[in-house]
């Protein structure tokens, strides 16, 4: 398994041609208290950089962008009742989607952990 990071502050934990996706701790801190997560349905296909959900904090609504092309194969349903989990454990329990990756070559455009740390300064 390898973890990649996007400039939109998502992490994607890749295992073969599937992956788990969520937002980074840094993103969660910037958002503040999360109060609502709008997720798409299982089976939805998406293109890299396409909008795949919305995270609403007390302050504002922020879009979630796809880091690669793919398809949603599972959603974390616990977030509907407990959106605050995104502040508590965004890189663990509060994952957002499991996806099937359509084009693994796109992972090369993403950052590794060291790269992401440098990116957020």
């Amino acid at each position, binding site marked *: 398994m390898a973890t990649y990071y996007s400039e939109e502050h998502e992490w994607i934990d890749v295992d073969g041609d599937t992956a788990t996706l969520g937002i980074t701790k840094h993103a969660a801190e910037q958002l503040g208290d999360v*109060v*609502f997560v*709008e997720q798409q349905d299982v089976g939805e296909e998406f293109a890299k950089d396409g909008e795949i959900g919305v995270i609403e904090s*007390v*302050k504002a609504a922020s879009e979630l962008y796809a880091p690669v092309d793919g398809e949603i194969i599972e959603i974390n349903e616990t977030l509907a009742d407990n959106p605050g989990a995104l502040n508590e454990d965004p890189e663990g329990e509060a994952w957002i989607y499991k996806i099937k990756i359509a084009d693994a070559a796109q992972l090369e455009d993403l950052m590794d952990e060291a790269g992401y740390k440098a990116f957020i300064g």
Partner: protein
Amino acid sequence: MADALKRTPLYDLHVELGGKMVDFAGWDMPVQYPMGIMGEHKQCREKAALFDVSHMGQVILRGSDVGQKLETLCPQAYATLPEGKARYGFFTNAAGGIMDDLIVSNAGDHYFVVVNAALRHQDIPHMQANLDGVEVTEIFDRALIAIQGPAAEDVVAAHCPAARDLTFMETTVARIMGAECRISRLGYTGEDGYEISIPEDKAVEIARAFLAHEDCEPAGLGARDSLRLEAGLCLYGNDIDQGTSPIEAALGWAIQKRRKAEGGFPGAARIQKELAEGPARKLVGIKPTGRAPARQGVEIQDDQGNTIGQITSGGFGPTVGGPVAMGYVSADHSAQGESVNLIIRGKPQPAQIVALPFVTQNYKR
């Protein structure tokens, strides 16, 4: 190049306390502290919170018959405002819209007026041009601090025993740690509390003393907004503006009986007509059924898909524990309990028209 952001006397304290600073109406203000908006909101509802509202315009009016002259600009009964009392009001325009909302206090030998930060450049010339024989002076050397919440009385009285003797909308001058302050029992959170005008060189020292109380924490503009929204209080620029009349905005309670009957203020024709016949649209409370917040600009539809209005303020209400909103709907859809749809990101989400406020106001009457 944009002008540098203005700083209040408490700026360095905000930074020291970890405040996240943002541009608000040209001022560098804390939107939140490390506690976060949710925590700061609850702190204010359950204990006490300190807000810096020094960016607002503080104005002194001196002259003869100031209250009476203010009645030519505002629909409030300021001529009969007793000494030591404060009253919420607004400037209206000739079309009956709201130019700004404000608090006017009768301080005995003068009147003390607080206006919105973004509108001081409109309001002060407006008063100077229209209040004949009244000296209109903006104060730049005083901070304005709000202490709000059920523990506010204890927090403030520890340094100013006179604070206990005030009831809601009363104002006085008292010494706090040696500084002469104007202390008024009011605020904009729906909670009991005070707004205190403090000489700028003592503001940090006094703020630190309040914050040293175990029940008092700093809160930013984010919590201030969610608190006033739950309390059903209008935000100028969102819920009220030059186009909305006070009657549409459900602010009829802020126009005293004599003024309603006699008129004699800008826009009286429209306002009196709406009082008699009812306005075409009304500001109402809106409670989304689901969890998605409905924010400013969201379209409101009836169950047939017809547009009936728009959300003017909306977000998450930490005390309510869910989304809350206010908006204008056509009068025939404004009854409490009416089911409506909110168009959030293109999809209709069910909601209901409800009474305002969303939380009980806890004023000390």
